[in-house]
């Protein structure tokens, strides 16, 4: 089980558009809500009304400032959840087989009833995509909403992850990367989807679309506008002519 499948039939995952994410945290909270009520143990919170509130979340939104060599600093909101890596180290390190990668769709899951809560899988994940639930003592991670995407009790259009369904800006896309014609594959192709920490060799399934170039208006925009006249009187003369044409 903790061996990785040689190949998965499908490669389900997310595309996250960094050009569009406004950093609203909607995906964070809807993920928390869905996964508290669904797959496995609820995502607990410690000291929720006290001095050190903390809890388990499967998706978190960071933000970074990038300062180009010549230009204003930019701010990029950066959501991050499990990337369902093809070479998932979190699976192979797991001593109990609780962590596994599904052969049919490539989803990396934790079978909570087998998990001893040793934390090793979280140690091995470069992305911080796993959090040990302090109340339940088991490892929690993004399930890619496995209990939504195939759920026959949900209407067809809702069989997508909670975070994707809720994202107001439409910055999250769900699909099959094994299919070159899928929405996600096309987005990756068109917008230059990228891997996080490629040097870690995890081969993440989830891809990130880089922000588009910014602050180009001075160089790219329409040619500067030419005055129709320098003086008010000239302007009124122009006006008369312009009005004639209407």
């Amino acid at each position, binding site marked *: 089980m903790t061996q990785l499948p040689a190949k998965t039939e499908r490669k389900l995952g997310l595309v996250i558009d960094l050009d569009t994410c406004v950093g609203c945290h909607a995906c964070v909270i809807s993920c928390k809500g869905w996964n508290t009520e669904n797959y496995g143990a609820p995502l607990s919170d410690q000291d929720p009304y006290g001095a050190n509130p903390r809890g388990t979340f499967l998706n978190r939104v960071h*933000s*970074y400032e990038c300062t180009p060599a010549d230009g204003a600093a*930019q701010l990029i909101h950066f959501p991050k959840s499990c990337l369902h890596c093809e070479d998932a180290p979190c699976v192979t390190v797991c001593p109990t087989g609780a962590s596994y990668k599904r052969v049919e769709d490539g989803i990396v899951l934790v079978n909570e009833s087998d*998990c001893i809560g040793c934390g090793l899988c979280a*140690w091995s994940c470069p*992305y911080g995509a796993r959090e040990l639930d302090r109340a339940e003592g088991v490892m929690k991670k993004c399930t890619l909403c496995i209990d939504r995407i195939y759920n026959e009790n949900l209407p067809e259009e809702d069989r997508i992850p909670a975070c994707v369904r809720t994202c107001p800006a439409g910055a999250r896309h769900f699909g099959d990367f094994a299919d070159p014609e899928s929405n996600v594959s096309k987005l990756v192709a068109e917008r230059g989807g990228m891997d996080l920490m490629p040097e870690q060799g995890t081969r993440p399934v989830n891809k990130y679309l880089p922000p588009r170039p910014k602050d180009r208006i001075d160089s790219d925009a329409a040619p500067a506008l030419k005055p129709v006249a320098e003086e008010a009187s000239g302007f009124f003369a122009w006006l008369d002519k312009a009005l004639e044409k209407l």
Partner: protein
Amino acid sequence: MHPAPSVIIFTTFSGLGFGLLTFLGLGLPEVTGMTAFLLFAVAYLFAVGGLIASTFHLGHPERALKAFTQWRTSWLSREGWASVIALALMALYGAGLVFLGQRWVLLGYAGALMSLLTVFTTSMIYTQLKTIPRWHTALTPVRFLSFALAGGALLAGQVKTAILLLLVAGVVQVAHWMRGDGALAASGTTLASATGLGRIGDVRAFEPPHTGSNYLLEEFVHVVGRRHSQKLRVISILLMVAVPVALLMLPFNHLIAALAVLSHVLGVLVARWLFFAEAEHVVGLYYGKRHA
């Protein structure tokens, strides 16, 4: 990394315990009867006690047996098997020594090998982690093994060997530190590669994703001040190597030997604390150094 006491205790004592078992398996010293019993008791106390301590940080220790299932891929699982085999072999071997006065040499060698293998598997749990560049090096198993052997020799009363091995362990430790300090930078993993944003310009963590804490921050993002860690490094080398070696140079007596062991164990504990506390997990990059 968060220096969890249970893990520090586990790695320190199980290392010493298996180190001692290695020497006992090799017949160094050749003991039988009560002496053997005492030495084996100490070895088992350390090795098994350490193993038990390691379950303290588990969320579900009652499911620990499940950890034996994944030996094909998991070093933690292999460690489980190795330790059980080592302990079983050495128990049989020890019983022969204690109760029958018999030394089954081949069994002893096998037990010694398995004991070292156990230490090796433990070290591989850390070594395999690409996410912690400081640990991801062949020096890590060398370090674990040299510590186990030095400690084992010390406990086994192998004065000359111990002096030598302690010095080796000291050198290995220093080498591990020296390499470790540049490991993250050398790993090629940076905030720029972590975010893919390096192409825009200089990347800096801005707001953390939450002002509250979480498992990742508590477990992985532990920052030790540089001056603090330098001090502790010196202390640990003094306690672990210098003091025991100096004591062992003195004419042997049991008090001195006990002091040497005590000093060594304390030194290893400090070194082990540093091993964890100084380890930078790459996930820390995502959080920048800007969390409180």
